[in-house]
């Protein structure tokens, strides 16, 4: 059963950041030419892969935790409506207000209205994928409200008028020298002698944001988890910018996707072990904030929770694809992906890049709006191996490719070629003939190990992005017959 058939809407066009201007191969071609980008990404992903492997390796029950994480998420999705209703009851009972948004446009309207009601024209923000997804900053700006990103990497992206390229480290594509240059250019009053020492750069960000934290009246955050039975929200972070936003302002607005709910308090004992080790490669991240509604005399006295659908229910309708909703946004799959490491996050065109993005974005938008993403993978399976909640990303990619092919009106040249191949492979005589014909390819190769990329169409559509090996002098069956006289 698919969402299209059931009439469940996907994330609307024209708002938010789930669709790119270019297809993946076209966008990747540009980024592959950028040597600096590839060097930065190669260095950063290698660093984090090593750290993750070390801290995951020291947990003797990692497999059991991973299976429990998967099972909790599956059980949550199976009763998602009930858990959301329970969450709403609990948050409301503790002094919070719950809002529901069918899509990005509604969510942006709700948040804008809530900020306007406080009378302020600026907000501080904790890094949040959900607010990036719905394009909240742009919506607030259009309403005359300045949204200040406070996570160091988000700040780098915002000051550089750039876009995020990684779930955990949105500025992973920038190295320290480039970050220094952005700070020197855009931070008022920054020390002109600022070096590219990461410690000095972090201190510059601290000085830049300190006063903003102390004067902020409204903060906007996402949520890593929301516990249905208690109404407890959780934000996991490192720098303390999250704590500043969650603690100091009078009003806190938390925007979260409906799939972030977990049924019980105990479930956090699983995810708080899986997430930090998978994402930053730490045993525990420096700060985790947990709160339920409003606490008199401690923290924000007004709390709003905005629950956002924006295509998630359409994902839920697909029995194979719904596993993508289990994602806890650790980004381990990005860091191990050979395609991500070379193409970079921008090539995916969505705020969700890498393997998880390749299965999540096309489902949130409908396959036709992100048709190239399920093909942005070599299906090597490294993403599945590292996923802390065991999302079978390769199987969902294959499932989405099939869905894309089925959605086509006419069979393309590739489908016709595979149909012919299937016929040849099921008939020994045809197969031997085909192998003989393939031998002709050796003439085209002129002794090189691969055929030239400039084959005539439609073959060029295949060889444009792939090397076609030159056929061997003899086939296996010919060699067998020669050596064994068969």
């Amino acid at each position: 059963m698919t969402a299209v058939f059931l009439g469940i809407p996907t994330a609307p066009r024209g708002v938010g950041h789930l669709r790119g201007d270019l297809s993946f191969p076209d966008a990747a071609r540009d980024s592959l030419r950028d040597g600096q980008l590839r060097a930065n990404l190669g260095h950063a992903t290698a660093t984090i892969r090593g750290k993750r492997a070390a801290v995951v390796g020291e947990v003797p029950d990692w497999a059991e935790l991973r299976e429990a994480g998967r099972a909790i998420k599956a059980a949550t999705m199976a009763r998602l409506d009930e858990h959301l209703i329970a969450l709403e009851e609990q948050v409301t009972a503790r002094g919070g207000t719950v809002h529901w948004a069918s899509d990005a446009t509604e969510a942006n309207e709700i948040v804008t209205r809530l900020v306007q009601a406080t009378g302020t024209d600026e907000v501080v923000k904790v890094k949040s994928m959900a607010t990036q997804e719905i394009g909240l900053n742009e919506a607030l700006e259009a309403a005359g409200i300045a949204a200040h990103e406070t996570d160091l990497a988000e700040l780098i992206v915002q000051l550089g008028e750039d876009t995020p390229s990684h779930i955990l480290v949105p500025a992973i594509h920038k190295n320290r020298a480039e970050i220094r240059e952005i700070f020197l250019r855009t931070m008022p009053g920054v020390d002109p002698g600022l070096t590219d020492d990461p410690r000095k750069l972090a201190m510059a960000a601290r000085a830049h944001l300190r006063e903003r934290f102390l004067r902020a009246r409204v903060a906007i955050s996402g949520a890593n988890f929301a516990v249905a039975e208690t109404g407890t929200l959780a934000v996991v972070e490192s720098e303390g910018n999250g704590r500043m936003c969650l603690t100091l302002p009078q009003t806190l607005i938390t925007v979260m996707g409906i799939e972030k709910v977990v049924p019980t308090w105990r479930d956090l004992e699983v995810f708080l072990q899986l997430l930090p080790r998978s994402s930053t490669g730490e045993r525990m991240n420096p700060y985790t904030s947990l709160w339920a509604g409003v606490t008199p005399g401690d923290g924000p006295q007004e709390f709003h929770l905005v629950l956002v659908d924006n295509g998630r229910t359409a994902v839920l309708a697909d029995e194979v694809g719904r596993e993508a909703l289990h994602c806890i946004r650790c980004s381990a799959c990005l860091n191990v992906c050979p395609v991500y490491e070379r193409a970079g996050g921008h090539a995916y065109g969505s705020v969700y890049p890498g393997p998880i993005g390749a299965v999540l974005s096309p489902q949130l938008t409908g396959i036709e709006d992100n048709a190239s993403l399920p093909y942005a993978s070599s299906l090597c399976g490294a993403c599945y191996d590292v996923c802390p909640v065991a999302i079978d990303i390769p199987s969902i990619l294959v499932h989405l490719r099939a869905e894309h092919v089925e959605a086509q009106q006419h069979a393309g040249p590739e489908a016709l070629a595979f149909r012919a191949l299937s016929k040849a492979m099921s008939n020994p005589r045809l197969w031997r003939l085909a192998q003989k014909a393939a031998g002709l390819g050796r003439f085209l190769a002129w002794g090189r190990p691969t055929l030239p990329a400039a084959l005539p169409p439609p073959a060029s559509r295949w060889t444009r992005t792939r090397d076609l090996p030159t056929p061997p002098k003899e086939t296996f069956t010919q060699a067998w017959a020669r050596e064994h006289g068969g």
Partner: protein
Amino acid sequence: MSARDEILGRIRTALGPDRAAPAEVRRDYRLTDDRSPDELLDVLTDRLEDYRATVVRCAPSEVAATVGSALRTALGEHSPADVVVAPGVPADRRPDGAVEDDGRPAVALAGYAATVTGVAVAIAETGTLVLDGSPLSGRRALSLLPDCLVCVVEAAQVVGSVPEGLARLDPLAPLTMISGPSATSDIELQRVEGVHGPRTLVVVLVA
């Protein structure tokens, strides 16, 4: 139709009319840690130091003096009134002349150089201290704004694993889990200690 009804209706449509009962979640991961209390203190110390926190051990009678000397090391010569303590920290454990948090507006706490609090629980395996907003832990802004944080941890508050730690906490309290000083990995994924939260974390282990 309200957005709430719309979304709940979509979920019910997506899941279909014949929902199977969700499979039982098997919790066969480690729920307890059988290492001895002494070993757990060593693990906690090792993890905290790995995050560049300073750990000092002392006897119950030496807490005030140990906190005082840790503050002198972290801050250099300072006025006793630069130090603010959570209201529930017992009088005999406070450094001389420290000011008690009197509930002034949170941002005013930024004027202090250091904070002294207790904790609700400490998790050895991950090097995590949990503050729960009680008088002993103080309100959340107290352990956030001053640049140096000193936490006094009793040996009996130390558990081995994350499940044991969470089981001791109240899910309705404003909780802050702290594992080392504030840090970032945002520049080339290299960890740098010290961003917006306290740049210095001192843990006084009372054993």
